[in-house]
């Protein structure tokens, strides 16, 4: 294991988040089994007191979980020079078999943590813990992913050795490579551009419709999820090419580097913000008729829809600006 400050920070914070999530999940099982707001029993009153404390602590931990995705990518990018053949985060992530699984788990836990924070925020707005079961159920779903991420990330860091020859992004994100990335790379850019802009248009329309008419919350949630997947594919397929101004360089990580103005960070942050808030709109929809939330929840959903649409809009504007104003062209690819 390398004693790099960021690696140590990620390693120990992940350990702490896992322990806290495990404790909260165990407590969540008790909540799911024994919660009865009508009861004045000692157990019920004890649960009411403790849930406030646990929710507050876990929400701070999960906020760090959100940040840790970017710290992980930044760390992988910043230590790539230590590995022979690595040019960016891709090289670091392929040093051993735990790099990409860690990244994937980090993305999954980012989305789950974001959704949990939305549920927790909505629950805190009600006077009678209206979403308590839902939020602890979601925490129970998230807990295995958080624990798995800690184990996989720990294995990744522990097995990082600088004498390994690794692959650069040019080799991994090319048509000759194997895997889903190469299949995305192989897709012609025009159909992918149509898919990307079409998906964004439909997502904006659904978000705007919800914002104006409060209709179609589930549609906003589903489209936000689909837009995330399509956008990632679009970044690999054609967006990255415009930033690099090279027809064969499809790496989704190099845009995080200084040479490209660190544009990858705002792009990915906007994408994830749009996804989490958009899915959050749909997630809250089943609870809009809860007595203590029926006045408040539509406003919360409206704000989430606005954030989602604005995030995706900004993402699209940055990407389109680059495509329009660069001298690079993809004619024929």
């Amino acid at each position: 294991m390398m004693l790099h400050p960021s690696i140590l920070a990620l390693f120990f914070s992940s350990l702490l988040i896992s322990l806290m999530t495990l404790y909260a999940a165990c407590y969540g099982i008790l909540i799911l089994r024994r919660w009865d707001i009508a009861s004045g029993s000692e157990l019920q009153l004890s649960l009411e007191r403790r849930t406030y404390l646990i929710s507050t602590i876990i929400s701070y931990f999960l906020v760090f979980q959100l940040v840790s995705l970017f710290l992980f990518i930044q760390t992988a990018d910043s230590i790539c020079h230590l590995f022979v053949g690595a040019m960016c985060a891709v090289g670091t992530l392929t040093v051993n078999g735990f790099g990409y699984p860690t990244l994937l788990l980090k993305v999954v836990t980012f989305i789950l943590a974001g959704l949990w924070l939305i549920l927790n925020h909505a629950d805190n707005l009600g006077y009678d813990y209206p979403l308590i079961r839902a939020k602890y159920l979601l925490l129970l779903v998230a807990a295995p992913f958080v624990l798995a991420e800690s184990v996989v990330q720990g294995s990744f860091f522990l097995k990082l050795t600088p004498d390994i020859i690794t692959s650069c992004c040019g080799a991994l994100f090319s048509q000759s490579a194997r895997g889903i990335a190469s299949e995305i790379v192989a897709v012609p850019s025009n159909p992918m551009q149509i898919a990307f802009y079409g998906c964004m248009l439909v997502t904006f329309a659904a978000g705007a419709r919800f914002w104006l008419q409060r209709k179609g919350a589930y549609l906003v949630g589903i489209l936000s999820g689909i837009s995330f997947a399509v956008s990632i594919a679009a970044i690999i397929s054609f967006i990255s090419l415009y930033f690099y101004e090279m027809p064969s360089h499809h790496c989704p990580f190099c845009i995080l580097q200084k040479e490209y103005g660190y544009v990858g960070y705002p792009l990915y942050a906007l994408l994830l913000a749009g996804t989490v808030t958009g899915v959050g709109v749909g997630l809250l929809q089943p609870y809009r008729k809860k007595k203590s939330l029926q006045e408040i929840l539509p406003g919360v959903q409206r704000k989430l829809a606005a954030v989602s649409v604005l995030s995706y809009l900004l993402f699209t504007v940055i990407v389109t600006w680059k495509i329009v104003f660069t001298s690079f062209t993809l004619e024929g690819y």
Partner: protein
Amino acid sequence: MISARDISKVFNAGRPSEFTALHGVSLDIRLHETTVLKGPSGSGKTTLLALLGCMSRPTTGRIFLNDREITSLPERFLTEIRRSTFGFVFQQFNLIKGISALENVMAPAYPTGEKFSLLRRRALAALEMFNLEKRADAKVEWLSGGEAQRVAIARALINNPTVIIADEPTAHLDTRLAHEFIGIMADLKAKGSTIILASHDPIVYDSELADRVVEMRDGQVVSQGISA
């Protein structure tokens, strides 16, 4: 109506120093009346007052304020109820030393975000009600016992509470000041306030102010009835 249902309060639960201050107390307190909790030291009066005033939570049982259950409320909701419904007068007055009487009176209203000039005017009016307008800028450590108590009452009234809670309010007062306190409370009651007092002072529970006297002993209500 403030209703307590089967309230128990255990301190230091599970430790060798575990102490049960209240055992299954059930009680109804009518609004616009004065209820006096009477009993010796250690009978649970202060604990019950703290629970009724939303300053602490019971170990078991529920409390209802106008049929709304309040013990399960998350802290931020409870804070709002505490601020808008209850005014507290503490046994030791608990005035903040180092700041003036006026600032002490204004302090509980700061979180409401009320315009400072309006709040200051209201605080001065509250002090004026107790003939303390000339002492407004005096630091609280310079006040006499009677003045400090009246400042504490003015502070309790600053958020226009519907219920005034006072814990052993006459414990540190001589007879004249104790009667003066009873007079102030009678005026507030006449204006529609609900008053809940904890006291083992006969000046309080034998006064005409008391509509109901609840007698407590060993953490239980032993009798409750209309005051003679």
